[in-house]
């Protein structure tokens, strides 16, 4: 009896190690990519910020000069302002819209699948170059939006992408328009809330707002937290929209100079790769900081079901 048990144990062991080997072989292309394309450059970029590297000749060591220069760079400080404005305006608005639409869709209706797909579509293409080009046309000084405004009788419509005070707003609107993907996640989360909670609350005389605030939000809070973390990390890294809408300049007047765009212009436009690498590490620290804060604060408002 024990011999058979031993034999089947050994057979299981052999099967498992064969399974593991096969798994690693299937993973190999991805692993090679991870090391060569992601980890390798990251390690290299630990060294680059301490060098002066103009892409065309070998890097040479300059110590912490790049980091010091960053603190005195007005355009960099401005790009931080622009990026923070973008992240902390567009993400809450986008998530609020996503939640609102998800709640509406959750009531159930004819054609629900159709609406879900239609609302999701913009978030699939939202960070593409094509959509950004379209956006630049729509919000041009003589673009479709202004043509409609003029027809409606607005006298001097704003310059949108050409006016420093409104250019960033057009990119914020673009981000809000891509509410579809957090919406789908919210919808899934809403489906998981047992209706008996709502029924019990209704019996107790709670109105819609109370039900929303005291049932939906707490039970949905893990999902809100998830979306918040992901969207903030993603928003800090936005590049395409700013690049295309401003024509690659971060203009007008650096009003759409996202941090990533300034990093790109310094690295590839001004041939200051060392400086750009320093900027990249600062971005990582900033994103890590906000993610950590997010996690720390979450214990005060996120309720996990046991």
């Amino acid at each position, binding site marked *: 009896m024990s011999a058979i048990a031993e034999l089947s144990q050994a057979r299981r062991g052999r099967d498992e190690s064969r399974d593991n080997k096969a798994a690693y*072989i299937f993973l190999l292309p991805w692993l090679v990519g991870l090391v060569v394309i992601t980890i390798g450059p990251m390690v290299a970029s630990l060294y680059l910020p301490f060098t002066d590297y103009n892409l*065309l*000749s070998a890097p040479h060591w300059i110590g912490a000069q790049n980091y010091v220069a960053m603190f005195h760079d007005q355009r960099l400080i401005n790009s931080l302002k622009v990026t923070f404005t973008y992240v902390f305006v567009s993400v809450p608005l986008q998530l609020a819209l996503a939640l609102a639409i998800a709640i509406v869709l959750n009531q159930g209706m004819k054609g629900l699948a159709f609406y879900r797909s239609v609302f999701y579509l913009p978030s699939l293409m939202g960070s593409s170059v094509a959509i950004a080009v379209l956006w630049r046309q729509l919000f041009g000084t003589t673009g479709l939006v202004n043509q409609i405004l003029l027809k409606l009788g607005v006298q001097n419509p704003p*310059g949108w992408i*050409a006016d420093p005070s409104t250019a960033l707003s057009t990119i914020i609107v673009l981000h809000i328009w891509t509410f579809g993907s957090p919406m789908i996640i919210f919808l899934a989360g809403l489906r998981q809330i047992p209706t008996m909670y709502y029924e019990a609350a209704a019996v107790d005389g709670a109105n819609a707002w109370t039900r929303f605030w005291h049932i939906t939000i707490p039970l949905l809070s893990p999902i809100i937290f998830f979306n918040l973390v992901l969207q903030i990390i993603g928003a800090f890294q936005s590049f395409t929209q700013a690049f295309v809408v401003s024509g690659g300049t971060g203009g*007008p007047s*650096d009003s759409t100079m996202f941090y990533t765009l300034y990093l790109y212009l310094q690295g590839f436009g001004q041939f200051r790769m060392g400086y750009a690498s320093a900027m990249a590490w600062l971005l990582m620290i900033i994103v890590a900081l906000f993610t950590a804060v997010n996690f720390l604060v979450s214990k005060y408002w996120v309720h996990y079901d046991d």
Partner: protein
Amino acid sequence: MKLTRRTTLVAGVLAAGLALTATGCGTGDSGGSAANANGKTVVRLGWWGNDVRNKLTTDVVNEFEKENPDIKVQLEPGTWSTYWDKLATQVAGGSAPDVIQMDESYLTQYSTNGTLLDLKKAGLDMSNFGSGTSDMGTTPSGTFGVVAGINAPVVLANPKVLKAANVAMPDDKTWTWDSLAKDAEKVTANTPSGTYGSANWAYTDFMLRLWLRQHGANEYDGSKPGFTASQLAPFFQQALDLQKSKAFPSASLASQDSTTSQDQGMAATNKVAFSYWWSNQITALNKDTGQDLKMLMPPSESGNAKDTQLYYKASMLWSINKSTKVQAAALKLVDFLVNSPTAGKILGTERGIPANSKVLDAITPQMSDTDKQVSDYLKSISGDLGPTMGLTPPGASNANYATYVTNLLFDKTSPQQAAQDYQNAVATALKGKS
């Protein structure tokens, strides 16, 4: 090992993965590969342009390949707005083209970093070049570019818009900044809304330089700004005044136009009467506007053409990648482009007037009317030129001139403040970059 389905599957995935990785590594250095399957030498030619230039370049390359059957030229067209980012990336990755179209404002940067070949040392023949033109691509360390064509600043006047506004074509030998402004105001007033007298010239670099030269200053002085804030402020004040008087388009239109591509801008769509270009750009603009635009010398303060302080510029240059594996073939191509009368006839003046006087003589009889116009324009201003304009110092583009103009036009800074800000920006940008 038994040939189970699993083993075959695993082997297949391994093989595919290895194959993909191999191809991935392989394409990395095909950039410098010297021969393709047919045994011909492949020379890669990169340039920025527009539809007109792309067609002419394709034609001239076909002619070159006819005369040199053992060389195949691989065409790599691009557009100005993305060209420099792409080139920087290619140079960093070691896959830059063999023959590179170059601009004088980037020449110093690329040459000091060893990307470009010294053409004089490599033996490029520039013996028939007009005086001063063989040095247009020369820096203190050598000659890294050969001028592809010569041009000069020009004001293009749109006859249809002027006619619709009932404004006579001005006389460019006697006009002034003020008279141009007044004509522009008249045009805006007499044409439907959306059409303006003049593009906002504050965004145009050579208008800034001409104005500064006419007032005893310069944009750059070696690696320092060549002007003081008080010298620049009146230029900005004038731009602001003309925007108020509607000679110029609104701030939004002007700011947008400054980042729109040439063929979609206000000049190309017949929305302004006067716009500011380099003389070789008239070929594409005539096509876009569907008209024969008139070339006018930029204005002076005094109304005397001799005070305009114009200058010739290399519209663009040809450079050769120092790490090219096909140097002889690349030199042949560049030599053909700048020294061959056949090439000259095909390219016309779209890249500027040829520097090689023999080529210029050969193409003059068959010049199209536009080419004649450009050639005549350059000849007509030759007596009124100011001192030669030096190469733009490296780092200058980091000064980000357009931002200060935009801030001025949207009333965020005063002209004096904008001038001071720009001067500080130039000083910072040029420092430590030489």
